[in-house]
């Protein structure tokens, strides 16, 4: 059984006991434990079920590479699925439940799959479940989906907060082991700005666990010294619990800081996503141990040798009482020795190698009385939910049983792979290291930065160094080279501390154990624990022609689990290479993609949630609208009142009331969102003549003109009223949401095409609150405010003037988008609300009533005015809309003119704008199409027109619509059929689009 030892545990605070629950059972651990070590201390070896076969799974690693031990953590607003127990720091009150089983972890019905596993090899689902056709959706897929997945879906809204942080440095060192510390020291001493991040809560990495000696003292004292020196440096920032998640182009790195995961309830954000821009990145990310592929290597109790050492040394936890060590390298001997030192039994070390003489560690192990069997291997592991023994065989053979050893744990080591993920994210290439059977970063092919030079350097074990003195020297040299290239100078006398060398025997690549394992054994030899991919699966993939590494990966799902193949990739590659008789480097690797280890979506989103999910743009009158029943409509980032709904009113009622009242009495519209752009300069007239289809240079100061803007591709993109302010100054109104776009459009042409034209533009949209005072009583209301003359004689239709009204400094435009007498009045935004209030008071007994965007739409539709975004959709040219009158015939050029000469633009069969009236007075469905005869070659019904806007008009008491119709203007009075999506067909007559006040008398009073 696994248990807590009486002694040991360098990371534990034994004075601080912590209580937590697993599957409802209360357990105890210490501060400093990970959830993994605490579970093991409570003899909880079985922690989950695998993805495909639902096999029992135990903890296999001690770090982020853990593929098995994923739990549901927390509850309600702090619930999170798929949390790795090895990276979860224990805290008081932690609650965890195991995943992917029903009804319970111990008894899982899904485990029937494991008995069917021979029927479920790689790619089995591509070969079956095809008949009958409907069964995939209704039978097979639901079963597969239910059986797959891991943790439960969160149900409650996340209760935590998250943030981003932008950081800049010359050198970013990722990894706080001895290599990272030495690199940071070296870089820091040069005066460079350095950030050093470490994913765990502790500095030092593996070396202190492994008993490394630095400068003739234990590694911990070096770590303590280094951290102290770095902390004292002004130019160095240190961060634990911060993982280098991804390396992106131009030295951009995501650092994932888990700020309060280990102390929930404390104030502050839960995660902080660092967005670091580094001059250079040093990846001191260490190496990860590989499993060995033997039958039964997935049974709980089989663990990576170094992980087992971590549990003993760091947490004082024994994984088993009797541990068989199986290895192809010297490193695993450290585990045997550590176990022995902890008073645990190591019945044998099975070493696949046959060596001429003992290395230093082998001698040490033997001196401790451990039986070392060279050239031996595991034929199979015995046990179900827990290891009970191993069957020993020769590595060179096919698995013939030599003996059986009873044990309750197996420590395995297949060698080490440098963590090359961050090096590779941005295109860094790898080279195969024959001696260590691993891929190392290729220093000659680094990821390329903005300046064309490499911007990542790997250091220490991450660059393939496995001796402590090599690691330290490499880290020192890496930092030295990097800082020099950045223009800093490392002190001359600085050199790396001396790491003790160990006289290790060479490792021997072992990709299958025993090397001639039978098909039956291969079907039990796991490569990817979580996704249940075995040696036999990769071989099958190769046999079926999936020989590209990407094909094999996708066909078998190898390396696609939540550990992203940290344990399985190299073993899988080697298995594939063997199967196709190719050298491993020629098979290549799959692409490493960020993140290194999964990061929370919430951290990626940062602060942007709820109220600040996206900016909301508010007009100066927003609060009034909000307090007076506004139903909001998002228009771009703006919010505009759709209608002001009163008690006991539907939204439709409100709209009808607002429309009628505006026509009969007086309405107010908050028009502040309309864009206002000042265009000034000697060439401003010439410029506007290019921007608009109309002639704007001939407009007289004091006058307004409606204008159309097209893209260079000919399509209508905006419209609005232009006022000439002075001889060299115009003010252009744009649509809501058009201000930034059109301002940018103007600047673009001025800066990149006509840079010799003397024109300045300024977007003054938000300087003003703008209110449309609309309706028969509008003038009366303004006269009550008193001030400037707003009479027809002084301020005629399409005039504008500056002046004062009710003591407010205003600019008044006599323009109308409703067909009523109308003034649009601009006032400085800081006075906007007061002006609005003054209008409400002055208009009180004149029937003043604000109206929203829907009423605006109906009022304009009654007049046949087009609306950008309704009558236009990016495919419409002004000529389609009967707006040829607004296209100057006198101009040689304007944006869009050449485009409008293309054959499809001049085609007489383009649909043209008309009015539409149903024969029965009902309202046409918005967006409906008019059908013609027959179908086209593709079997689609031929169409001859469509509805662009449709409303019920309270003023006319019937439905009105506008639409685009084939030869429409020539077909007045004809009736068209519009099939609805409701099964009905609507009959509508083609009419003039102006339904109300056809002569246009009303605004002109």
């Amino acid at each position, binding site marked *: 059984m696994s248990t807590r030892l009486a002694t040991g545990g360098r990371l534990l605070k034994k004075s601080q006991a912590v209580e937590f629950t697993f599957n409802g059972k209360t357990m105890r651990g210490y501060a400093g434990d990970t959830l993994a070590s605490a579970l093991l201390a409570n003899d909880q070896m079985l922690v989950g079920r695998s993805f495909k076969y639902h096999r029992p799974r135990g903890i296999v690693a001690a770090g982020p590479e853990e593929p098995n031990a994923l739990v549901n953590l927390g509850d309600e607003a702090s619930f999170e699925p798929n949390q790795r127990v090895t990276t979860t720091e224990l805290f008081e009150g932690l609650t965890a439940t195991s995943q992917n089983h029903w009804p319970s972890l111990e008894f899982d019905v899904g485990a029937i799959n494991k008995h069917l596993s021979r029927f479920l090899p790689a790619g089995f689902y591509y070969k079956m479940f095809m008949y009958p056709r409907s069964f995939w959706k209704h039978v097979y897929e639901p079963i597969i989906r239910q059986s797959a997945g891991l943790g439960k879906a969160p149900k409650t809204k996340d209760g935590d907060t998250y943030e981003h942080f*932008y950081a*800049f440095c010359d050198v970013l060192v990722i990894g706080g082991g001895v290599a990272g510390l030495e690199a940071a020291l070296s870089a820091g001493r040069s005066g460079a700005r350095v950030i050093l991040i470490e994913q765990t809560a502790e500095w030092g990495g593996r070396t202190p666990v492994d008993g490394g000696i630095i400068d003739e003292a234990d590694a911990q004292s070096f770590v303590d010294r280094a951290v102290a020196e770095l902390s004292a440096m002004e130019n160095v920032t240190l961060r634990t619990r911060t993982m280098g998640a991804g390396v992106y182009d131009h030295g951009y790195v995501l650092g994932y800081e888990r700020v309060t995961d280990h102390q929930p309830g404390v104030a502050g*954000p839960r995660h902080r996503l660092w967005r670091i821009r580094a001059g250079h990145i040093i990846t001191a990310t260490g190496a990860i141990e590989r499993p060995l592929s033997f039958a039964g290597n997935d049974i709980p109790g089989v663990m990576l040798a170094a992980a087992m050492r971590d549990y003993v040394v760091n947490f004082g936890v024994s994984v088993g009482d009797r541990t068989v060590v199986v290895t192809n390298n010297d490193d695993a001997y450290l585990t045997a020795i550590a176990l022995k030192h902890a008073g645990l039994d190591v019945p044998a070390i099975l070493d696949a190698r046959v060596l001429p003489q003992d290395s230093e560690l082998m001698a040490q192990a033997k001196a401790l009385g451990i039986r070392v069997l060279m050239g031996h291997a595991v034929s199979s592991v015995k046990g179900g939910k827990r290891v009970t023994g191993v069957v020993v065989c020769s590595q060179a053979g096919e698995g013939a049983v030599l003996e059986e050893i009873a044990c309750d744990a197996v420590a395995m080591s297949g060698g080490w792979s440098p963590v090359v993920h961050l090096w590779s994210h941005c295109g860094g290439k790898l080279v195969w290291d024959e001696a260590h059977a691993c891929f190392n970063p290729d220093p000659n092919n680094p990821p390329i930065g903005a300046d064309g030079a490499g911007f990542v350097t790997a250091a220490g074990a991450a660059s393939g160094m496995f001796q402590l003195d090599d690691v330290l020297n490499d880290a020192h040299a890496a930092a030295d080279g990097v800082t020099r290239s950045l223009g800093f100078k490392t002190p001359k006398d600085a050199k790396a501390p001396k790491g003790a060398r160990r006289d290790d025997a060479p490792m021997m690549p072992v990709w299958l154990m025993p090397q001639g394992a039978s098909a039956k054994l291969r079907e039990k030899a796991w490569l990817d624990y979580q996704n249940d991919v075995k040696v036999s699966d990769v071989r099958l993939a190769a046999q079926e022609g999936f020989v590209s590494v990407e094909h094999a990966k996708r066909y078998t799902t190898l390396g696609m689990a939540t550990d992203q193949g940290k344990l399985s990739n190299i073993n899988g590659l080697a298995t594939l290479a063997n199967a196709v008789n190719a050298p491993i480097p020629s098979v290549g690797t799959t692409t490493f993609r960020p993140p290194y280890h999964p990061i929370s979506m919430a951290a990626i989103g940062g*602060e942007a949630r709820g109220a600040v999910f996206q*900016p909301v*743009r508010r007009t100066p009158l927003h609060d009034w609208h909000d307090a007076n029943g506004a139903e909001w409509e998002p228009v771009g*980032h703006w919010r505009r009142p759709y209608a002001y709904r009163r008690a006991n009113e539907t939204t439709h009622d409100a709209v009808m009331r607002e429309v009628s009242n505006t026509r009969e009495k007086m309405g107010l519209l908050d028009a502040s969102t309309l864009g206002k752009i000042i265009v000034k*300069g000697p060439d401003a007239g010439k410029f506007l003549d290019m921007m608009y289809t109309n002639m704007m240079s001939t407009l007289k100061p004091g006058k307004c003109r409606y204008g159309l803007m097209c893209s260079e591709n000919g399509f209508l993109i905006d419209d609005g009223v232009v006022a000439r302010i002075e001889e060299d100054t115009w003010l252009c109104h744009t649509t809501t949401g058009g201000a930034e776009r059109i301002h940018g459009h103007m600047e673009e042409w001025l800066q990149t095409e006509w840079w010799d034209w003397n024109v300045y533009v300024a977007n003054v949209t938000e300087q003003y609150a703008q209110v449309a005072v609309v309706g028969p009583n509008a003038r009366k209301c303004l006269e009550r405010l008193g001030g400037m003359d707003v009479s027809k004689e002084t301020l005629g239709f399409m005039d504008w003037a500056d002046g004062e009204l009710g003591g407010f400094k205003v600019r008044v435009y006599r323009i109308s988008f409703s067909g009523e007498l109308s003034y649009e009045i601009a006032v400085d935004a800081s006075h906007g609300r007061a002006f609005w209030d003054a209008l409400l008071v002055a208009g009180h007994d004149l029937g003043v009533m604000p109206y929203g965007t829907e009423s605006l739409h109906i009022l304009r539709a009654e007049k046949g005015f087009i609306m950008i975004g309704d009558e236009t959709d990016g495919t419409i040219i002004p000529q389609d809309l009967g707006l040829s009158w607004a296209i100057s015939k006198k101009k040689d050029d304007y944006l869009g003119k050449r485009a409008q000469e293309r054959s499809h633009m001049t085609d007489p069969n383009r649909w043209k704008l008309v009015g539409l009236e149903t024969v029965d007075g009902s309202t046409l469905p918005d967006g409906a199409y008019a059908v013609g005869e027959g179908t086209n070659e593709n079997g689609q019904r031929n169409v001859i027109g469509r509805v662009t806007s449709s409303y019920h008009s309270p003023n006319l008491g019937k439905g009105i619509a506008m639409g685009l119709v084939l030869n429409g203007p020539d077909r007045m009075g004809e009736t068209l059929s519009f099939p609805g999506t409701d099964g009905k067909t609507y009959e509508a007559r083609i009419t003039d689009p102006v339904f109300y006040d056809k002569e246009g008398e009303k605004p002109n009073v």
Partner: protein
Amino acid sequence: MSEPVTALHNASYTSGIAEVFEVGPIGMITLRGDLNAKPLRKVAVAAAGVNVPDQRGILTEGARGMAWMSPDELLILCPYDEVHARLADLQSATAKLHALAVNMSDARAVFEIRGPHAREVLAKLAPVDLAPGRFAPGTIRRTRMAQVPAAFWMVDDVTFRIVCFRSVAQYMFDLLKIAAQPGSEVGAFK
């Protein structure tokens, strides 16, 4: 005329790791023209009461000041109640030049962030190197804060002023409150 009202009625937040105040109204005039031309520089100096700053510079003196916004744009700061007079002066002084002067005082909202963690609060929102020594009083930075454009400068070593569009004042205030929430000290700037 009514009393001018800022977007958020001078709202404030003082219970976080830095203090956040909406300040203003502040007079702001955008002046566009040839910044290398002496007549224009003269006019600008007369209106602002300070020298024309260098590229990305800002010079202030009390409520007056001037900021370099782009190669052909300056921002003139003055008391809000003077802005119409200043603008009229500018417009008449530039009548013979090719230049554009417009009042932007009401188009914007201004925030002040104070306290030893002010740099961190900004660094959570703007992709700008805000380390001491890298950003200091005298510079104006036009950039993005979360999802909106903004500009900021330092009044002193622990105080920033941020200018953004008036319509997004509430968004900016909400952002700053979150970035300054208790317990969110980063400790990145020594």
